[in-house]
């Protein structure tokens, strides 16, 4: 068990990064509402029995507040349609689905235009919480592909969730073809939940005892709040702050979530959990491709961009090194006089007076400004020079 105060301190930091539970409920409502729309009688895709699965941080319970007030929350879902890949082109499916999403946006008076991304459609909600929803149309993968994934060692219950997705950049995008990109976001989510559930059980039982839920199966993943989920929130925030000027260079959330989930060993306090996760993360990055495989489809590489753009890998390692150094400093920070400055630097959070009173150990009189500065005895030094 780590120093109790550090644990309380980190818990308090993560509480302030967390979003109100009502946001999660709101997100769930949006998925449900979209699902109902797609299944209504006039819907052009109703015949394909659309099935909406929430994805991403709102599903895993790893959302953190955006850095600034204008920041949007990303909501993701996967809409699985039942039809053979060769029944229509990727393009036709994307377009047909897009028409329904556009009609949904109009029916709900959304003002911003619907955006077409390479693989999904993006809807901008504009009420008091700014969300955008990326909705990914796909078809259930055929048995031969699922068998191949099982052949790579993936359990059937994960492999069977694989889907074929449309991608505007795919050479067969406008053609009738069985050659579609394969992906398994639903399998990843299932894997994440399977790995996490056992650690959540004590809390699940508490919630049921408190009569907030009728059974442990009813508690949504975002309510689990395991040290793994909270560690991911903390690490994502640290990443957001470090890359606030250059978000395009930042390691993507899926890489952090994937590696953290592999690295978590069930530690019960947040400090031991997150330091252990950060220490072990590198051992789950493979030397060859796929560098960071989806456990539910090892051919899918979350770090596929690293090979095209080595800077992205370098930035992952820089982030990792900085996160490791920052976590290692936390116990000392509580004893020093720089707690609030450092927390602002690491997490861009302003500590409240109450937090400072609670966590800053050294009494004001004991602190000295230069206390942290290393003392250097200079013996022989280069003479400064300059070009002409």
């Amino acid at each position, binding site marked *: 068990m780590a120093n109790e105060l550090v644990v309380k301190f980190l818990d308090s930091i993560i509480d302030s990064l967390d979003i109100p539970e009502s946001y999660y409920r709101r997100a769930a409502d949006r998925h449900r509402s979209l699902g109902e729309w797609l299944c209504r009688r006039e819907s052009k895709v109703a015949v394909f029995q659309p099935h909406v699965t929430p994805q991403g941080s709102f599903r895993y319970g790893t959302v953190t507040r955006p850095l600034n007030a204008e920041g949007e929350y990303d909501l993701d879902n996967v809409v699985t349609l039942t039809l053979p890949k060769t029944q229509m082109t990727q393009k036709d499916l994307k377009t047909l689905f897009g028409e329904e999403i556009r009609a949904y946006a109009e029916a709900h008076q959304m003002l911003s235009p619907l955006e077409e991304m390479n693989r999904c459609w993006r809807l901008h909600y504009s009420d008091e919480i700014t969300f955008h929803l990326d909705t990914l149309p796909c078809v259930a993968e055929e048995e031969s592909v699922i068998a191949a994934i099982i052949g790579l060692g993936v359990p059937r219950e994960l492999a069977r969730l694989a889907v074929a997705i449309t991608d505007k950049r795919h050479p067969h995008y406008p053609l009738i073809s069985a050659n579609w990109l394969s992906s398994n976001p639903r399998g990843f989510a299932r894997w994440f939940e399977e790995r996490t559930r056992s650690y959540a059980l004590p809390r699940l039982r508490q919630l049921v005892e408190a009569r907030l839920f009728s059974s442990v199966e009813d508690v949504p993943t975002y309510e689990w709040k395991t040290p793994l989920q909270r560690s991911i929130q903390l690490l994502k925030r640290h990443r957001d702050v470090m890359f606030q000027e250059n978000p395009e260079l930042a390691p993507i959330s899926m890489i952090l979530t994937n590696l953290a989930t592999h690295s978590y060993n069930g530690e019960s306090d947040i400090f031991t959990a997150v330091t252990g996760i950060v220490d072990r993360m590198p051992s789950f990055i493979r030397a060859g491709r796929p560098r960071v495989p989806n456990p539910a489809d090892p051919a899918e590489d979350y770090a596929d961009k690293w090979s095209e753009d080595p800077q992205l890998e370098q930035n992952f390692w820089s982030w990792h090194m900085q996160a490791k150094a920052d976590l290692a400093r936390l116990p000392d920070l509580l004893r020093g006089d720089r707690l609030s400055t450092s927390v602002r630097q690491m997490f861009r959070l302003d500590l409240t007076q109450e937090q400072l009173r609670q966590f800053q150990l050294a009494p004001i009189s004991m602190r000295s400004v230069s206390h942290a500065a290393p003392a250097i005895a200079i013996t022989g*030094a280069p003479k400064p020079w300059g070009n002409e």
Partner: protein
Amino acid sequence: MRASALQKWGIEELLRKYPYLRLQPAKGHEMIIAGSLEFSAQTRGQELISDRYEISISVPPDYPRVIPLVRETAMRIPRAFHKLDSGHLCLGSPTRLQLILAEASSLISFVERCVIPYLYGYSIVESGGVLPFGELSHGARGLREDLASIISMDDDLVLLGFVRLLAMKKRKANKLPCPCGTGMRVGRCHNRKLNTLREKLGRRWFSSLLRGSR
């Protein structure tokens, strides 16, 4: 640049010891470490100085073969002090800096042996003192001065002779007469000094000096 490079260069130790220096997102191939460098430093016969500078260190991928570039970012040090045309701090002659990195290649030792002494010197100058370790003339003259002090020879021709020997293979150089004028062959005269320098910096470094590309 992978995890191994970060480890080899001792970045983690640097970040721990100087926590207000932080890794920055990399846009090019260099690794950028920037923030406040706080130190308390002292040298013999001088006062203890505690100070803080805002700096940015750009570490090239082929560090320590290539020396990092350092910038002072709060515009406290004027251009007229020792700076390169690019605005980077001119911490010392390239040969001197290479020698220091050849002895200890971690970034901590670069910061403590090259960057902090420079900033410490500026703090003294800023408060009206003189540079504690002296300074080199600008341009080629400064390079020659520093080489003269590294080799401990002041005559131009002798110095040139030594640099030529340093650019040669040890076996070949040792058979030649020593440029210092004793009449002995190098192998029986200044060989130890030359061998150490050649081992630390490599022959190529000295042949590039001869070509004038440094």
